[in-house]
Protein backbone atom coordinates (compact mmCIF):
# COMPACT_ATOMS: atom_id res chain seq x y z
CA UNK A 1 0.00 0.00 0.00
CA UNK A 2 1.14 3.46 -0.73
CA UNK A 3 -1.57 5.81 0.53
CA UNK A 4 -1.32 9.39 -0.55
CA UNK A 5 0.62 11.20 2.13
CA UNK A 6 -0.18 14.56 3.59
CA UNK A 7 2.44 16.76 2.05
CA UNK A 8 1.29 20.19 3.18
CA UNK A 9 4.23 22.50 3.17
CA UNK A 10 4.76 25.75 5.03
CA UNK A 11 6.79 27.23 2.16
CA UNK A 12 3.86 27.07 -0.22
CA UNK A 13 1.69 30.11 -0.90
CA UNK A 14 -1.65 30.23 0.85
CA UNK A 15 -4.96 31.46 -0.53
CA UNK A 16 -7.30 33.66 1.56
CA UNK A 17 -9.27 30.48 2.36
CA UNK A 18 -6.32 28.45 3.69
CA UNK A 19 -7.39 28.52 7.34
CA UNK A 20 -10.97 27.64 6.33
CA UNK A 21 -9.69 24.53 4.49
CA UNK A 22 -7.79 23.39 7.59
CA UNK A 23 -10.79 24.10 9.80
CA UNK A 24 -12.99 21.98 7.48
CA UNK A 25 -10.52 19.07 7.76
CA UNK A 26 -9.24 19.20 4.18
CA UNK A 27 -6.39 17.01 3.03
CA UNK A 28 -3.92 19.52 1.56
CA UNK A 29 -1.42 19.12 -1.27
CA UNK A 30 0.96 21.27 -3.25
CA UNK A 31 -0.57 22.57 -6.48
CA UNK A 32 1.06 25.24 -8.66
CA UNK A 33 3.02 26.54 -5.67
CA UNK A 34 -0.03 26.76 -3.39
CA UNK A 35 -1.10 24.60 -0.45
CA UNK A 36 -4.51 23.54 -1.76
CA UNK A 37 -7.33 21.21 -0.61
CA UNK A 38 -7.35 17.98 -2.64
CA UNK A 39 -10.43 16.73 -0.75
CA UNK A 40 -12.48 17.30 2.39
CA UNK A 41 -13.78 14.60 4.78
CA UNK A 42 -16.71 13.96 2.40
CA UNK A 43 -14.27 12.43 -0.11
CA UNK A 44 -13.81 12.86 -3.87
CA UNK A 45 -16.69 10.59 -4.87
CA UNK A 46 -19.36 12.26 -2.71
CA UNK A 47 -17.95 15.74 -3.39
CA UNK A 48 -18.30 15.11 -7.12
CA UNK A 49 -21.86 13.77 -6.85
CA UNK A 50 -22.88 16.56 -4.46
CA UNK A 51 -21.76 19.20 -6.97
CA UNK A 52 -24.03 17.69 -9.64
CA UNK A 53 -26.96 17.37 -7.17
CA UNK A 54 -26.63 20.49 -5.00
CA UNK A 55 -23.82 23.03 -5.09
CA UNK A 56 -20.06 22.83 -4.60
CA UNK A 57 -17.82 25.64 -3.40
CA UNK A 58 -14.28 25.54 -4.79
CA UNK A 59 -11.32 27.73 -3.80
CA UNK A 60 -9.70 28.74 -7.08
CA UNK A 61 -7.88 31.76 -5.64
CA UNK A 62 -4.59 30.29 -6.91
CA UNK A 63 -5.62 31.22 -10.44
CA UNK A 64 -4.32 34.50 -11.84
CA UNK A 65 -6.59 37.53 -12.20
CA UNK A 66 -5.30 40.27 -14.50
CA UNK A 67 -6.84 43.60 -15.53
CA UNK A 68 -5.94 45.35 -18.80
CA UNK A 69 -6.83 49.00 -19.43
CA UNK A 70 -6.05 50.81 -22.68
CA UNK A 71 -4.08 54.05 -22.14
CA UNK A 72 -6.48 55.62 -24.66
CA UNK A 73 -9.35 54.90 -22.25
CA UNK A 74 -11.15 52.86 -24.94
CA UNK A 75 -11.67 49.20 -23.94
CA UNK A 76 -11.68 48.20 -27.62
CA UNK A 77 -8.06 49.32 -27.96
CA UNK A 78 -7.10 46.89 -25.18
CA UNK A 79 -9.10 44.11 -26.86
CA UNK A 80 -7.40 44.70 -30.22
CA UNK A 81 -3.98 44.81 -28.52
CA UNK A 82 -4.66 41.46 -26.79
CA UNK A 83 -5.61 39.95 -30.16
CA UNK A 84 -1.89 40.14 -31.08
CA UNK A 85 -1.20 37.26 -28.67
CA UNK A 86 -4.45 35.29 -28.87
CA UNK A 87 -6.47 33.85 -31.80
CA UNK A 88 -9.69 34.73 -29.99
CA UNK A 89 -11.85 37.66 -31.19
CA UNK A 90 -11.49 39.68 -27.98
CA UNK A 91 -12.90 42.78 -29.68
CA UNK A 92 -16.07 40.80 -30.36
CA UNK A 93 -16.86 40.29 -26.67
CA UNK A 94 -19.81 42.49 -25.69
CA UNK A 95 -19.81 44.60 -22.52
CA UNK A 96 -20.66 42.42 -19.51
CA UNK A 97 -19.78 39.20 -21.36
CA UNK A 98 -16.81 36.83 -21.26
CA UNK A 99 -15.25 34.38 -23.70
CA UNK A 100 -12.87 31.39 -23.53
CA UNK A 101 -9.38 32.33 -24.73
CA UNK A 102 -6.09 30.73 -25.75
CA UNK A 103 -2.50 31.99 -25.80
CA UNK A 104 -0.59 30.47 -28.74
CA UNK A 105 3.11 30.19 -29.63
CA UNK A 106 4.90 30.54 -32.97
CA UNK A 107 4.62 26.77 -33.61
CA UNK A 108 0.83 26.98 -33.19
CA UNK A 109 0.97 25.29 -29.77
CA UNK A 110 -0.85 26.50 -26.69
CA UNK A 111 0.82 28.49 -23.91
CA UNK A 112 -2.32 28.64 -21.72
CA UNK A 113 -6.09 28.88 -21.78
CA UNK A 114 -8.04 31.58 -19.97
CA UNK A 115 -11.29 33.54 -19.65
CA UNK A 116 -11.50 37.14 -20.82
CA UNK A 117 -14.33 39.52 -19.91
CA UNK A 118 -15.28 42.92 -21.29
CA UNK A 119 -15.83 45.01 -18.16
CA UNK A 120 -16.78 48.19 -20.01
CA UNK A 121 -13.64 50.27 -19.47
CA UNK A 122 -11.19 47.36 -19.12
CA UNK A 123 -10.60 43.66 -19.78
CA UNK A 124 -10.62 41.11 -16.94
CA UNK A 125 -8.68 37.87 -17.43
CA UNK A 126 -8.54 34.69 -15.36
CA UNK A 127 -5.53 32.51 -16.24
CA UNK A 128 -4.20 29.19 -14.94
CA UNK A 129 -2.29 29.20 -11.65
CA UNK A 130 0.77 27.40 -13.00
CA UNK A 131 1.06 29.80 -15.97
CA UNK A 132 0.11 33.11 -14.37
CA UNK A 133 3.57 34.64 -14.03
CA UNK A 134 4.50 33.70 -17.62
CA UNK A 135 1.13 34.95 -18.85
CA UNK A 136 1.64 38.28 -17.08
CA UNK A 137 5.09 38.62 -18.68
CA UNK A 138 3.61 37.70 -22.08
CA UNK A 139 0.88 40.32 -21.73
CA UNK A 140 3.27 42.99 -20.47
CA UNK A 141 5.71 42.36 -23.32
CA UNK A 142 3.01 42.68 -25.97
CA UNK A 143 0.70 45.30 -24.47
CA UNK A 144 2.60 47.59 -22.08
CA UNK A 145 3.16 50.24 -24.76
CA UNK A 146 -0.58 50.78 -25.17
CA UNK A 147 -2.13 49.41 -21.97
CA UNK A 148 -1.91 49.50 -18.18
CA UNK A 149 -1.66 45.94 -16.85
CA UNK A 150 -2.60 45.14 -13.28
CA UNK A 151 -1.97 41.69 -11.81
CA UNK A 152 -4.38 40.93 -8.96
CA UNK A 153 -2.74 37.70 -7.82
CA UNK A 154 -3.70 38.34 -4.19
CA UNK A 155 -7.44 38.51 -4.84
CA UNK A 156 -9.73 35.65 -3.85
CA UNK A 157 -11.67 33.58 -6.39
CA UNK A 158 -14.47 31.21 -5.39
CA UNK A 159 -16.31 28.91 -7.81
CA UNK A 160 -19.85 27.96 -6.85
CA UNK A 161 -21.06 25.15 -9.14
CA UNK A 162 -24.14 23.00 -9.42
CA UNK A 163 -27.94 23.17 -9.76
CA UNK A 164 -28.30 24.86 -6.35
CA UNK A 165 -25.64 27.53 -7.09
CA UNK A 166 -28.20 30.07 -8.30
CA UNK A 167 -30.40 29.84 -5.21
CA UNK A 168 -27.40 29.88 -2.84
CA UNK A 169 -25.78 32.96 -4.40
CA UNK A 170 -29.01 34.86 -5.08
CA UNK A 171 -29.96 34.51 -1.41
CA UNK A 172 -27.03 36.88 -0.76
CA UNK A 173 -27.07 38.79 -4.09
CA UNK A 174 -30.51 38.58 -5.81
CA UNK A 175 -29.19 39.94 -9.15
CA UNK A 176 -27.14 36.77 -9.62
CA UNK A 177 -30.34 35.00 -10.75
CA UNK A 178 -30.72 37.42 -13.69
CA UNK A 179 -27.34 36.51 -15.17
CA UNK A 180 -26.98 34.17 -18.14
CA UNK A 181 -24.12 31.79 -18.98
CA UNK A 182 -20.90 33.81 -19.58
CA UNK A 183 -22.35 37.07 -18.23
CA UNK A 184 -20.00 39.07 -15.99
CA UNK A 185 -21.25 41.65 -13.50
CA UNK A 186 -20.21 43.55 -10.42
CA UNK A 187 -22.45 42.43 -7.54
CA UNK A 188 -22.58 43.28 -3.86
CA UNK A 189 -22.58 40.05 -1.86
CA UNK A 190 -23.38 40.57 1.81
CA UNK A 191 -21.74 43.99 1.62
CA UNK A 192 -18.66 42.84 -0.31
CA UNK A 193 -17.94 44.13 -3.83
CA UNK A 194 -17.51 41.14 -6.15
CA UNK A 195 -16.91 40.55 -9.85
CA UNK A 196 -19.12 37.58 -10.72
CA UNK A 197 -19.24 35.52 -13.91
CA UNK A 198 -21.83 32.85 -14.63
CA UNK A 199 -19.40 30.14 -15.69
CA UNK A 200 -17.18 27.44 -14.30
CA UNK A 201 -15.24 24.25 -14.89
CA UNK A 202 -17.64 21.48 -13.89
CA UNK A 203 -20.20 21.24 -16.69
CA UNK A 204 -22.79 22.59 -14.26
CA UNK A 205 -24.50 25.94 -14.07
CA UNK A 206 -22.70 28.16 -11.58
CA UNK A 207 -20.58 31.19 -10.85
CA UNK A 208 -17.02 32.31 -10.36
CA UNK A 209 -16.83 35.04 -7.73
CA UNK A 210 -13.82 37.36 -7.52
CA UNK A 211 -13.38 39.10 -4.17
CA UNK A 212 -10.95 41.25 -2.30
CA UNK A 213 -8.73 38.91 -0.25
CA UNK A 214 -10.08 40.33 3.02
CA UNK A 215 -13.71 39.52 2.02
CA UNK A 216 -13.11 36.04 0.62
CA UNK A 217 -13.24 33.98 3.82
CA UNK A 218 -16.38 35.73 5.08
CA UNK A 219 -18.27 35.25 1.78
CA UNK A 220 -17.15 31.62 1.48
CA UNK A 221 -18.50 30.94 4.97
CA UNK A 222 -21.75 32.73 4.14
CA UNK A 223 -22.21 30.51 1.07
CA UNK A 224 -21.27 27.34 3.00
CA UNK A 225 -23.94 28.21 5.57
CA UNK A 226 -26.51 27.30 2.89
CA UNK A 227 -27.52 23.65 3.43
CA UNK A 228 -27.12 22.88 -0.27
CA UNK A 229 -23.47 24.00 -0.43
CA UNK A 230 -20.46 21.78 0.38
CA UNK A 231 -16.75 22.59 0.10
CA UNK A 232 -15.21 20.66 -2.81
CA UNK A 233 -11.52 19.93 -3.37
CA UNK A 234 -9.29 19.76 -6.43
CA UNK A 235 -9.82 15.98 -6.74
CA UNK A 236 -13.50 16.33 -7.58
CA UNK A 237 -12.80 19.48 -9.61
CA UNK A 238 -10.71 17.28 -11.91
CA UNK A 239 -13.28 14.46 -12.26
CA UNK A 240 -16.07 17.00 -12.85
CA UNK A 241 -14.22 18.81 -15.63
CA UNK A 242 -13.16 15.51 -17.23
CA UNK A 243 -16.78 14.32 -17.43
CA UNK A 244 -17.66 17.73 -18.90
CA UNK A 245 -15.00 17.23 -21.60
CA UNK A 246 -13.09 20.36 -20.54
CA UNK A 247 -9.34 20.57 -21.12
CA UNK A 248 -6.80 20.75 -18.31
CA UNK A 249 -3.82 22.85 -19.39
CA UNK A 250 -0.64 20.79 -19.02
CA UNK A 251 -2.54 17.52 -19.59
CA UNK A 252 -4.92 17.81 -22.54
CA UNK A 253 -3.40 20.91 -24.09
CA UNK A 254 0.16 22.20 -23.94
CA UNK A 255 2.89 23.89 -25.95
CA UNK A 256 2.89 21.02 -28.49
CA UNK A 257 -0.86 20.84 -29.20
CA UNK A 258 -2.56 23.26 -31.58
CA UNK A 259 -6.13 24.53 -31.06
CA UNK A 260 -7.24 22.54 -34.11
CA UNK A 261 -5.69 19.30 -32.83
CA UNK A 262 -7.24 19.99 -29.40
CA UNK A 263 -10.69 20.21 -31.01
CA UNK A 264 -10.94 23.84 -29.90
CA UNK A 265 -11.65 25.38 -33.33
CA UNK A 266 -14.86 26.80 -31.83
CA UNK A 267 -12.71 29.08 -29.65
CA UNK A 268 -11.34 30.83 -32.75
CA UNK A 269 -14.13 33.01 -34.11
CA UNK A 270 -14.63 33.69 -37.84
CA UNK A 271 -13.17 37.21 -37.53
CA UNK A 272 -9.74 35.69 -36.82
CA UNK A 273 -9.89 32.88 -39.39
CA UNK A 274 -8.91 33.02 -43.07
CA UNK A 275 -11.16 35.58 -44.76
CA UNK A 276 -12.22 37.20 -41.48
CA UNK A 277 -12.09 40.94 -40.70
CA UNK A 278 -9.07 40.47 -38.43
CA UNK A 279 -7.60 37.33 -40.01
CA UNK A 280 -4.46 35.93 -38.36
CA UNK A 281 -2.09 38.31 -36.60
CA UNK A 282 -1.50 35.98 -33.60
CA UNK A 283 1.47 33.70 -32.83
CA UNK A 284 1.38 30.54 -34.94
CA UNK A 285 -1.39 31.86 -37.21
CA UNK A 286 0.20 30.32 -40.33
CA UNK A 287 0.27 26.83 -38.77
CA UNK A 288 -3.17 27.06 -37.17
CA UNK A 289 -5.05 28.60 -40.11
CA UNK A 290 -3.47 26.03 -42.45
CA UNK A 291 -4.79 23.26 -40.19
CA UNK A 292 -8.28 24.71 -40.55
CA UNK A 293 -7.93 23.98 -44.31
CA UNK A 294 -6.08 20.66 -44.29
CA UNK A 295 -7.40 19.19 -41.06
CA UNK A 296 -5.07 18.07 -38.27
CA UNK A 297 -3.16 14.79 -38.28
CA UNK A 298 -4.34 14.04 -34.76
CA UNK A 299 -7.35 15.05 -32.73
CA UNK A 300 -8.36 15.22 -29.06
CA UNK A 301 -11.31 12.88 -28.50
CA UNK A 302 -13.31 11.36 -25.67
CA UNK A 303 -12.40 7.78 -24.80
CA UNK A 304 -14.63 5.28 -23.03
CA UNK A 305 -12.85 2.23 -21.58
CA UNK A 306 -14.89 -0.94 -22.19
CA UNK A 307 -14.10 -2.50 -18.80
CA UNK A 308 -14.16 -1.21 -15.24
CA UNK A 309 -10.45 -0.33 -15.00
CA UNK A 310 -9.70 3.40 -15.13
CA UNK A 311 -7.28 4.35 -17.91
CA UNK A 312 -5.20 7.28 -16.73
CA UNK A 313 -3.10 10.06 -18.27
CA UNK A 314 0.01 8.75 -19.98
CA UNK A 315 -1.47 5.41 -21.09
CA UNK A 316 -0.47 4.66 -24.69
CA UNK A 317 -3.11 3.83 -27.29
CA UNK A 318 -2.76 1.11 -29.91
CA UNK A 319 -4.88 0.20 -32.92
CA UNK A 320 -4.52 -3.55 -32.29
CA UNK A 321 -4.72 -5.83 -29.27
CA UNK A 322 -1.12 -6.92 -29.77
CA UNK A 323 1.96 -5.67 -31.60
CA UNK A 324 2.45 -2.39 -33.44
CA UNK A 325 3.56 1.03 -32.24
CA UNK A 326 1.45 3.43 -30.17
CA UNK A 327 -0.94 5.55 -32.27
CA UNK A 328 -1.92 7.95 -29.50
CA UNK A 329 -1.89 8.82 -25.81
CA UNK A 330 -4.42 9.31 -23.04
CA UNK A 331 -4.07 12.84 -21.64
CA UNK A 332 -6.71 12.70 -18.86
CA UNK A 333 -8.47 9.69 -17.44
CA UNK A 334 -10.05 8.33 -14.33
CA UNK A 335 -13.34 7.24 -12.84
CA UNK A 336 -16.36 9.40 -13.61
CA UNK A 337 -18.68 9.21 -10.59
CA UNK A 338 -21.66 10.59 -12.55
CA UNK A 339 -20.81 8.58 -15.66
CA UNK A 340 -20.70 5.53 -13.38
CA UNK A 341 -17.50 4.17 -14.88
CA UNK A 342 -14.11 5.06 -16.27
CA UNK A 343 -13.82 8.01 -18.69
CA UNK A 344 -10.83 9.49 -20.51
CA UNK A 345 -9.64 11.92 -23.18
CA UNK A 346 -6.64 11.71 -25.43
CA UNK A 347 -5.12 12.26 -28.85
CA UNK A 348 -5.64 9.81 -31.71
CA UNK A 349 -4.85 9.98 -35.45
CA UNK A 350 -7.67 11.79 -37.28
CA UNK A 351 -8.32 8.61 -39.30
CA UNK A 352 -9.11 6.81 -36.01
CA UNK A 353 -11.11 9.64 -34.43
CA UNK A 354 -14.67 8.68 -35.44
CA UNK A 355 -16.98 8.01 -32.50
CA UNK A 356 -17.25 4.25 -32.02
CA UNK A 357 -13.71 3.44 -33.20
CA UNK A 358 -12.22 0.75 -30.95
CA UNK A 359 -8.62 1.16 -29.80
CA UNK A 360 -6.57 -0.45 -27.05
CA UNK A 361 -5.00 1.30 -24.06
CA UNK A 362 -1.99 -0.25 -22.36
CA UNK A 363 -2.52 -0.44 -18.58
CA UNK A 364 -0.05 -2.36 -16.39
CA UNK A 365 1.17 -4.33 -19.41
CA UNK A 366 -2.30 -5.29 -20.66
CA UNK A 367 -4.12 -3.85 -23.67
CA UNK A 368 -7.65 -2.93 -22.67
CA UNK A 369 -10.33 -2.07 -25.25
CA UNK A 370 -11.30 1.62 -25.29
CA UNK A 371 -13.75 3.29 -27.66
CA UNK A 372 -13.72 6.80 -29.12
CA UNK A 373 -16.72 8.52 -27.50
CA UNK A 374 -18.58 11.80 -27.95
CA UNK A 375 -17.71 14.57 -25.49
CA UNK A 376 -18.96 15.55 -22.98
CA UNK A 377 -19.69 12.42 -20.93
CA UNK A 378 -22.40 14.29 -19.01
CA UNK A 379 -24.67 16.94 -20.52
CA UNK A 380 -23.91 20.46 -19.29
CA UNK A 381 -26.64 22.46 -17.56
CA UNK A 382 -25.44 25.99 -18.44
CA UNK A 383 -28.14 28.73 -18.23
CA UNK A 384 -27.95 30.06 -21.79
Amino acid at each position, binding site marked *: *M*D*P*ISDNSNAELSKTPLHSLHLELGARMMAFAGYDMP*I*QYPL*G*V*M*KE*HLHTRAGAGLFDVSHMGQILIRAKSGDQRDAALALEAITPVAVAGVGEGRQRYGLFTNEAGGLEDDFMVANRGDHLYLVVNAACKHEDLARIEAALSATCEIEAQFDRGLIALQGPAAESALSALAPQAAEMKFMDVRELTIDGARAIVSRSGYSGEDGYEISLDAMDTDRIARALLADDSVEAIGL*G*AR*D*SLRLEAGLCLYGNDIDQTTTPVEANLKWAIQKARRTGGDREGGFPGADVILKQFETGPERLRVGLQPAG*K*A*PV*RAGAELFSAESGGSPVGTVTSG*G*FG*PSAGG*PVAMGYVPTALSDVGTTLFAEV*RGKRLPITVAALPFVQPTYKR
Partner: protein
Amino acid sequence: MLKFTEDHEWLKIENGVATVGITAHAAEQLGDLVFVELPEAGAKFDKGGDASTVESVKAASDVYCPLAGEIVESNQAIVDDPSLVNSDPTGEGWFFKLKLDNVSDADALMDETAYQAMID
Protein backbone atom coordinates in the same frame (compact mmCIF):
# COMPACT_ATOMS: atom_id res chain seq x y z
CA MET B 1 -4.39 -12.16 16.19
CA LEU B 2 -3.80 -9.73 13.34
CA LYS B 3 -0.35 -8.85 12.02
CA PHE B 4 0.45 -5.63 10.16
CA THR B 5 2.98 -4.40 7.58
CA GLU B 6 4.54 -0.97 7.12
CA ASP B 7 2.66 -0.87 3.80
CA HIS B 8 -0.67 -0.84 5.67
CA GLU B 9 -1.75 -4.43 5.10
CA TRP B 10 -3.24 -6.69 7.75
CA LEU B 11 -2.82 -10.48 7.91
CA LYS B 12 -4.91 -13.02 9.79
CA ILE B 13 -2.96 -16.27 9.87
CA GLU B 14 -4.68 -19.64 10.34
CA ASN B 15 -3.06 -23.01 9.59
CA GLY B 16 -0.29 -21.48 7.49
CA VAL B 17 -2.70 -19.45 5.33
CA ALA B 18 -2.86 -15.64 5.71
CA THR B 19 -6.01 -13.75 4.85
CA VAL B 20 -4.74 -10.35 3.64
CA GLY B 21 -6.41 -6.97 3.37
CA ILE B 22 -5.65 -3.28 3.75
CA THR B 23 -6.07 -1.43 7.02
CA ALA B 24 -8.87 1.00 7.85
CA HIS B 25 -6.23 3.74 7.90
CA ALA B 26 -5.13 2.86 4.34
CA ALA B 27 -8.71 2.64 3.09
CA GLU B 28 -9.46 6.05 4.59
CA GLN B 29 -6.34 7.57 3.03
CA LEU B 30 -7.16 6.13 -0.41
CA GLY B 31 -10.75 7.31 -0.37
CA ASP B 32 -13.66 5.61 -2.12
CA LEU B 33 -12.31 2.74 -4.22
CA VAL B 34 -13.77 2.29 -7.70
CA PHE B 35 -11.67 -0.58 -9.04
CA VAL B 36 -9.79 -3.55 -7.59
CA GLU B 37 -7.61 -6.00 -9.50
CA LEU B 38 -6.71 -9.20 -7.64
CA PRO B 39 -4.19 -12.00 -8.31
CA GLU B 40 -5.40 -15.38 -9.53
CA ALA B 41 -5.27 -18.53 -7.41
CA GLY B 42 -1.95 -20.25 -7.98
CA ALA B 43 0.03 -17.05 -8.49
CA LYS B 44 3.26 -16.97 -6.48
CA PHE B 45 4.80 -13.81 -5.04
CA ASP B 46 7.89 -12.82 -3.14
CA LYS B 47 7.54 -10.49 -0.19
CA GLY B 48 6.83 -7.01 -1.62
CA GLY B 49 5.63 -8.26 -5.03
CA ASP B 50 2.86 -6.34 -6.80
CA ALA B 51 -0.03 -8.61 -5.87
CA SER B 52 -2.97 -6.29 -6.47
CA THR B 53 -4.01 -2.85 -7.68
CA VAL B 54 -6.63 -0.56 -6.19
CA GLU B 55 -7.94 2.62 -7.77
CA SER B 56 -9.81 5.54 -6.26
CA VAL B 57 -11.44 8.29 -8.30
CA LYS B 58 -8.14 10.09 -8.53
CA ALA B 59 -5.28 7.57 -8.35
CA ALA B 60 -4.08 3.99 -8.69
CA SER B 61 -2.07 2.30 -5.91
CA ASP B 62 -0.36 -1.07 -5.64
CA VAL B 63 -1.05 -3.54 -2.87
CA TYR B 64 2.11 -5.52 -2.15
CA CYS B 65 2.31 -9.15 -1.14
CA PRO B 66 3.13 -8.95 2.60
CA LEU B 67 5.11 -12.22 2.74
CA ALA B 68 6.32 -14.83 0.26
CA GLY B 69 3.67 -17.37 -0.71
CA GLU B 70 1.07 -18.67 -3.13
CA ILE B 71 -2.42 -17.24 -3.66
CA VAL B 72 -5.07 -19.82 -2.80
CA GLU B 73 -8.16 -17.61 -3.12
CA SER B 74 -9.13 -14.04 -4.10
CA ASN B 75 -12.20 -12.12 -2.90
CA GLN B 76 -14.39 -11.64 -5.99
CA ALA B 77 -16.87 -9.64 -3.85
CA ILE B 78 -14.53 -6.61 -3.74
CA VAL B 79 -13.98 -6.80 -7.51
CA ASP B 80 -17.75 -6.63 -7.98
CA ASP B 81 -18.18 -3.93 -5.30
CA PRO B 82 -14.93 -2.11 -4.40
CA SER B 83 -16.77 -0.01 -1.79
CA LEU B 84 -16.66 -3.06 0.54
CA VAL B 85 -12.98 -2.25 1.10
CA ASN B 86 -13.97 1.17 2.46
CA SER B 87 -16.97 0.02 4.48
CA ASP B 88 -15.44 -3.13 6.05
CA PRO B 89 -11.68 -3.20 5.40
CA THR B 90 -10.84 -5.92 7.95
CA GLY B 91 -13.95 -8.03 7.29
CA GLU B 92 -15.82 -8.40 4.00
CA GLY B 93 -13.21 -6.21 2.33
CA TRP B 94 -10.40 -8.81 2.47
CA PHE B 95 -8.25 -9.14 -0.68
CA PHE B 96 -6.75 -12.64 -0.93
CA LYS B 97 -5.65 -15.74 0.98
CA LEU B 98 -1.95 -16.52 0.82
CA LYS B 99 -0.37 -19.89 1.65
CA LEU B 100 2.84 -18.76 3.33
CA ASP B 101 6.17 -20.26 2.24
CA ASN B 102 7.40 -19.93 5.84
CA VAL B 103 4.87 -19.25 8.59
CA SER B 104 7.68 -18.01 10.82
CA ASP B 105 8.22 -15.06 8.42
CA ALA B 106 5.15 -13.50 10.07
CA ASP B 107 6.97 -13.22 13.40
CA ALA B 108 8.79 -10.13 12.11
CA LEU B 109 5.56 -8.25 11.32
CA MET B 110 3.99 -5.67 13.64
CA ASP B 111 1.21 -6.39 16.06
CA GLU B 112 -1.76 -4.03 16.33
CA THR B 113 -0.19 -1.91 19.07
CA ALA B 114 2.98 -1.36 17.04
CA TYR B 115 0.98 -0.55 13.89
CA GLN B 116 -1.20 1.97 15.72
CA ALA B 117 1.94 3.61 17.09
CA MET B 118 3.34 3.85 13.54
CA ILE B 119 0.31 5.64 12.08
CA ASP B 120 -0.38 7.92 15.05
